[in-house]
């Protein structure tokens, strides 16, 4: 008889953004068949919906605390999932959107599980990025599209191409170096505007975007001049979309080299 205990495993899955609309059959079966499901979602009603899919659903929300470093919170979330994997359980980490898009926790959990010899898998989901393309009618291939986490964008010098789209994530905490806040305000967003003003005119129109999380909800699509961003109401789930401010610039040298090839 084989007495080896069942080996734990981890699947980090994405349930998409909107309740009932984006969950794939495969993701649902990962959730239903798990011994324990840890959930981190952006809408409390979605958390209620998930509670019906597995008998052991555990919210990761209690790890968040204003004044506590989010880095510590994230590590604790990883540890909570890994503890159950090490105990031999089939663990499912259930994340809103896509679990691998602007999401440290699922990537770290999978990396750690694999480094300890456990099987770990990421199942993609429909990200807020996907909803943004659909709701704003943007094709990232048309002009190119750059994505940055807002604080990282402020803290490091980046080579921005103002002839492409620029999408900034987590603008609700733009410029927070403490990692201990759930929101930053007008002064922090003014610094963000000053950084953006290196590349964009202050009257350039930008979009504060929030995808619907409930089926009958409409997305937030608020257009405003860049200079008005500090005074705008910006929440945890808002994303900033900045349209191209310049036309594409032809590279004449490369064009003539290519012309010489034909």
């Amino acid at each position, binding site marked *: 008889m084989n007495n080896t205990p069942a080996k734990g495993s981890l699947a980090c899955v994405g349930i998409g953004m*909107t*309740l*009932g*609309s984006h969950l794939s059959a495969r993701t649902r079966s990962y959730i239903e068949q798990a011994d324990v499901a840890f959930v*981190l*979602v*952006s*809408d*409390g*009603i979605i*958390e*209620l*919906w998930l509670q*019906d899919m597995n008998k052991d659903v555990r919210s990761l*929300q209690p790890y*968040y605390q204003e004044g506590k*470093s*989010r*880095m510590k919170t*994230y590590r604790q979330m990883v540890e909570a999932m890994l503890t159950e994997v090490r105990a031999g359980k089939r663990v499912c980490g259930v*994340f*809103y959107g896509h679990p691998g898009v*602007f*999401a*440290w*926790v*699922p990537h770290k959990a999978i*990396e*750690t599980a*694999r*480094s*300890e*010899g456990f099987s770990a898998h990421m199942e993609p989901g429909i990200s807020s990025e996907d909803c943004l393309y659909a709701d704003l009618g943007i094709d990232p291939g048309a002009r190119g599209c750059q994505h940055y*986490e*807002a*604080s*990282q*964008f*402020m*803290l490091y010098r980046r080579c921005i191409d103002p002839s492409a789209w620029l999408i900034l*994530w*987590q603008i609700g*905490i733009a410029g*927070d*170096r403490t*990692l201990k806040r*759930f929101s930053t305000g007008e002064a922090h967003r003014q610094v963000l505007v000053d950084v953006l003003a290196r590349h964009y005119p202050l009257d350039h129109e930008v979009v504060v975007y929030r995808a619907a999380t*409930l*089926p*009958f*909800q*409409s997305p937030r699509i608020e257009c405003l001049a860049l200079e008005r961003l500090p005074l705008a109401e910006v*929440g*945890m*789930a808002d994303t900033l979309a900045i349209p191209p401010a310049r036309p594409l610039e032809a590279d004449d040298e490369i064009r003539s080299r290519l012309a010489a090839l034909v």
Partner: protein
Amino acid sequence: MSNVIQFLEKVGNAAQWDDVTEGKLELALAEADIEGPFRSAILNKDVAQLQVLLQQKEPVCFVIPGEEEEEEEGEEEPGEKGQLKDARCLPRVRFASRS
């Protein structure tokens, strides 16, 4: 409560609800036994009220730091210093990290 969630799932699931008339929505709510304040919140598309009725507040949804804090002492990043136990934990793509 669970009939409300099931109803939302049904609406989220199918395209026919996109431009449903108020009359049809009222009928569907009655069939799902959804009454009183839940019924009016859904009919009015009042998400804030629905959150209140279901006793939910906006969860925190940040899952990434803009800038990674130093690891606490003694902790080691998996994948560093030849500690790999399994080749599958190697990052799939290598890139330059901070200078």
